[in-house]
């Protein structure tokens, strides 16, 4: 897999992440009782994925490629409360981690792999935080092989 293909594959997951984080943020912003820590996690995550989406797009274009288009909507259920919003965030990050793991196994050797490993670490950390915030203990909030089996 070329670096361009790897960037494109990651970009498709970033579109979905931005969409899902938008849903989660909206629900958490109006949650009763207030879910401040969860909202902070959602807002930071939304920013991270928004920025990464733009950065990946720019890099694909700068290298002469055409970024894959995003979809108008994704099949994420609208969360019906703070717990569901945190579960959605964990799901989004799990899918990003799995995508990174997959791309790492197909990219040629090079520095893009280091970046993708950084994305994987960020996704695993955020997923664990979302589960911890929803009350799971470390045994259920974390996994020995994030993104992989």
């Amino acid at each position, binding site marked *: 897999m070329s670096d361009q293909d790897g960037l494109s594959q990651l970009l498709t997951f970033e579109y979905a992440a931005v969409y899902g984080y938008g849903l989660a943020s909206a629900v958490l912003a109006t949650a009763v009782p207030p879910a401040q820590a969860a909202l902070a996690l959602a807002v930071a995550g939304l920013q991270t994925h928004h920025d990464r989406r733009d950065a990946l797009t720019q890099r694909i274009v700068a290298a002469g490629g055409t970024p894959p288009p995003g979809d108008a909507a994704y099949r994420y259920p609208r969360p019906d409360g703070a717990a569901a919003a945190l579960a959605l965030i964990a799901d989004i990050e799990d899918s990003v981690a799995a995508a990174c793991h997959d791309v790492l196994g197909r*990219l040629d050797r090079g520095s893009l*792999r280091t970046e993708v*490993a950084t994305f994987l670490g960020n996704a*695993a950390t955020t997923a*664990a935080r979302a589960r911890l915030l929803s009350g799971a203990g*470390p045994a259920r909030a*974390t996994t020995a092989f994030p*993104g992989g089996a």
Partner: protein
Amino acid sequence: MTLRPGLHSPTRRTHLAGPGVPTRREVLAGTLLLALAACSDGNATDNGSSPDDDALRRRAAADEQRLLAAYAATAARHPALAGTLAVPWQQHREHAARLAESPRGSSGPSTAAPTAPPVPANASAAVRALATLERSVATTRRNACAAAGRGLAPLLGTLAAAELVHADVLLGGGEV
């Protein structure tokens, strides 16, 4: 690289010999093609593991043993931390087992027992020291990811991510 005198005199002569004899530039181009061909060969075997991968895997396994030794030493010094350490410690055992599976059937990781680092007397300082070690190993693995074969790179990336999570959980999820 040492200079090979034999390379110089023939190329000098080609300039004198004129057309029909490879010029210095053509010889260099040929050498470059050979080098590129060698690189392609390397990529062709990228899917499997290589001697380099064996070294990276051994390094990762040795780091895993270091982490296990650090957890054991910390637990021994601070029994009250047992609950905090349990999950990351168990996951490190799983990592060590995975790294011991060699795809080439060669010998497993070095069995030399690592020496545990000194454990701070203060429990929270001891936890911070473990988190620092986790992050340092995560950085090593993330960097190794760039050089590994395609079979090993995802595992190194996953292990690096797991260690960042461990550090985060140990520190209470308060720091990125």
